[in-house]
């Protein structure tokens, strides 16, 4: 396909986005139903044009069209097909195009599935979405055109950064963008509500599915990025407090707070002003993340390209949207009517505590990321804010979150009974103590962090189940009734419990890995062996292999435990010939939830090779737990009341009839 088609489609997208900003907004102002309706059509057209533009770029990559500068800089004809496709977004221009495509898709989804939204709200939401699209399309067209040609076209491309030539690039950025950009919808809802000056529980019911969707994708995206870094970077770390990771963690914290405060707003008509602010913050932090990554203000492994003019442009976008929305918030928020009163010890109170701690954690990450920049700008001093700072501050804030998590769902709305909740958690607490004791026994002395942390993790997991058991009434009513109630419970209850259990699972993995991991760094010759974490590894052979665009030096290790042969691990050092850049292809063997991790170093003078081997107990639980969290979010999304959408007056009696079984109301 002709790259000019893609370029032209992009320009048309800009025109459509501009119309989408102006027409529905004008329609909402003047109450013109026809103009408001145009918004939906334009959203679909926008998705069509950006989709066409993106597809054109993908085709240029697949066909290795080296007349396109972007393809020359980031592709190579010998690259396997998968990486030619994923390479489309493995660079600045392409990734921004993907960003806008996701934005347009979300707008189209609102147009398609928002049939039961009030026309005015829908029009304003699409207008806000259109304005964000306009800004980013301008950015792409003026500073980052992916379709720029090069004359004469070179015979061969410069290949993609080897670290990015991995299946991870196919998964991580799209998921992350679905999360990041997904929060643009909740942002648009918040701004639309502020423009109208009215907001109610139904608003929260519309916003919650979007927030949940974005949150679930962001959770998966972060988790997949973490696993990718873990196996690709070759030194066994899974979280680096890299500025770009921080950039994704900030909206995650804000988004987590948002999905919780939206519950309060939906059920109790309270915390409105705060929920709107969170919706604005979650997307603002996404934009800030985009700015930090794309401007090159912070250097990190994720920054594909650095260019000051782009930084200034994104900064302008940032100032406009964050500043604009916060100004609107300051003007309009006092007009929003406060509802639902509650006591400090109550479900609402617990969710407020959750919001407070998550917001503080978000602030810790924000301050830690930006402080070095601010200080340097202020007095020229260069300092580093590294992992010790983040572990200490975020860790300190997350401990009470984990501890309070099982209590929250057991408290009643309005006014809860803390002692009663504690009583119902006795079983979970007992189990936690047993787990902690087992951990202490297994460890045999050493830091208290491990037994304590594992006990806490067990408390979170079992406490999450306690809510479901409690609400079904096991132990209080006949078992048959309890099972009937269990079936009648809304899916969001199961979703919430599942997500909470996922947090506990993830926490368990983090604590176990950090306290019990074993590391071995050794120089090994062929035939030699070494020991790590109770496993004996023998280097059987070192053999060179050739791939399509790289050369491997593969070390084949036999694993034995207590003399029993457990198969082999292959670990490679890979050299990409086009850029002459080496990567490590670590050999990983999963045993239950634990992993044996072998990474090959340099060949040593005098024969042999440097090897780093790690025994990482329960490490996979970190990602399994994250996936469980996202699944919990997805399960919540299938809840009946979200599927049927916001309640319409006519449907209410029917809903009551359905809920006639003796299920306690939420």
């Amino acid at each position, binding site marked *: 396909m002709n790259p000019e088609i893609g370029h032209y489609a992009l320009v048309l997208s800009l025109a459509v986005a501009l119309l989408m900003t102006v027409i529905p907004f004008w329609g909402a102002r003047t109450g013109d139903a026809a103009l408001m309706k145009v918004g939906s059509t334009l959203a679909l057209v926008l998705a069509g044009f950006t989709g066409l533009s993106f597809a054109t770029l993908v085709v240029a990559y697949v066909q290795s069209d080296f007349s396109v500068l972007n393809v020359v800089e980031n592709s190579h004809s010998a690259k396997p097909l998968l990486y030619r496709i994923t390479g489309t977004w493995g660079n600045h221009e392409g990734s921004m195009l993907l960003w806008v495509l996701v934005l347009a898709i979300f707008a189209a989804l609102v147009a398609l599935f928002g049939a039961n939204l009030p026309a005015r709200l829908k029009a304003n939401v699409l207008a806000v979405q259109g304005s964000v699209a306009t800004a980013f399309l301008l950015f792409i067209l003026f500073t980052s055109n992916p379709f720029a040609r090069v004359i004469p076209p070179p015979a061969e491309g410069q290949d993609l950064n080897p670290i990015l030539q991995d299946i991870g690039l196919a998964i991580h950025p799209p998921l992350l963008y679905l999360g990041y950009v997904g929060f643009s919808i909740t942002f648009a809802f918040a701004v639309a509500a502020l423009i109208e000056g009215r907001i109610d529980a139904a608003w929260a019911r519309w916003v919650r599915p979007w927030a949940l969707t974005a949150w679930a994708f962001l959770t998966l995206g972060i988790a997949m990025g973490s696993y990718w870094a873990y196996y690709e970077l070759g*030194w066994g*770390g899974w979280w*680096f*407090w*890299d*500025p770009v990771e921080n950039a994704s963690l900030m909206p995650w914290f804000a988004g987590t707070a948002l999905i919780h405060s939206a519950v309060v707003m939906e059920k109790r008509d309270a915390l409105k002003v705060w929920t709107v602010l969170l919706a604005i913050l979650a997307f603002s932090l996404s934009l800030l993340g985009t700015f930090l990554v794309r401007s090159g203000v912070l*250097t*990190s*492994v994720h920054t594909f390209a650095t260019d000051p003019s782009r930084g200034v442009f994104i900064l302008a976008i940032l100032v406009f949207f964050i500043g604009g929305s916060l100004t609107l918030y300051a003007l309009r928020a006092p007009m929003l009517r*406060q509802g639902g*009163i*509650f*006591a*400090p010890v109550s479900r609402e109170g617990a969710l*407020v505590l959750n919001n*407070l701690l998550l*917001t*503080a*954690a978000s*602030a*810790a990450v924000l*301050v*830690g990321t930006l*402080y070095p920049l601010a*200080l340097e700008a*202020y007095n020229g*001093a*260069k*300092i*580093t*804010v*590294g*992992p*010790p*700072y983040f572990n200490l*501050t975020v860790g300190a*804030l997350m401990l009470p979150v984990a501890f309070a998590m099982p209590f929250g769902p057991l408290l*009643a*709305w*309005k*006014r809860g009974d803390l002692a009663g909740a504690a009583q119902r958690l006795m079983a979970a607490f007992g189990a936690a103590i047993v787990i902690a004791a087992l951990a202490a026994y297994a460890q045999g002395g050493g830091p208290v962090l491990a037994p304590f942390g594992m006990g806490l993790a067990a408390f979170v997991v079992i406490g999450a189940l306690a809510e479901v058991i409690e609400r079904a*009434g096991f132990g*209080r*009513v006949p078992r048959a009734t309890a099972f009937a109630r269990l079936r009648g419970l809304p899916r969001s209850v199961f979703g919430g419990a599942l997500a909470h259990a996922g947090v506990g699972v993830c926490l368990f993995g983090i604590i176990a890995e950090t306290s019990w991991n074993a590391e071995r*760094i*050794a*120089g*090994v*010759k062929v*035939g030699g*062996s*070494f020991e790590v974490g109770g496993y004996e590894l023998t280097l059987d052979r070192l053999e060179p292999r050739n791939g399509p665009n790289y050369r491997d030096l593969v070390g084949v290790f036999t694993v034995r435990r207590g003399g029993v042969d457990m198969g082999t691990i292959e670990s490679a050092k890979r050299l990409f010939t086009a850029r002459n850049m080496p990567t490590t292809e670590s050999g990983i063997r999963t045993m239950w939830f634990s992993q044996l991790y072998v990474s090959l*170093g340099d060949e*040593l*003078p*005098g024969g042999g090779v440097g090897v*780093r081997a790690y025994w990482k107990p329960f490490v996979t639980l970190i990602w399994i737990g994250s996936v469980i969290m996202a699944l919990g979010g997805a399960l919540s999304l299938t809840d009946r009341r979200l599927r049927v959408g916001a309640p319409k007056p006519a449907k209410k009696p029917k809903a009551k009839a359905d809920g006639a079984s*003796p299920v*306690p*109301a939420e």
Partner: protein
Amino acid sequence: MRAVLVYLLLAFALVTPAAAVQPDEVLPDAAQEARARELSKELRCMVCQNQSIDDSDAPLARDLRLLVRERIQDGDSDREVMDYLVARYGEFVLLRPTWHGANAILWLAPFAVLVAGGIGLFLAYRRRATPHGLRAATATEPLTPDEEARLRAALGDPAPSDSPADVTKV
């Protein structure tokens, strides 16, 4: 010189009992080596992107690791090693920011957010809880048996509910 020795050792032993980032960097004294590892995790590889010298493959990181080990072998305390590196490379080298000066802002900011949020909530709660709002809404004394019977009669529900908790939860 020491590197040569280590290398010679390596050449004879098939496997080195090493616990350092590169097998040839290890100190013979296990306690000193452990100290060196701990210090390395707190030091930034200045040419890298956000990595500690313990994690980095960069030549500069290796130089720093060797330097740390050299100082430790010369009898420096952990503190002296860090001070030496800060004197040479500035605070940029520290992954854990110091406490003095403006850095207190950095360390206290998250907790300031927490405290400010807590105070704000408390004030908002106080304001709303006063004259009629909350007290009226939540002052639900448990019903007397007599009241409960009347309530049931009024609701037309003769059977006692299985748990009073359900009533209050609704």
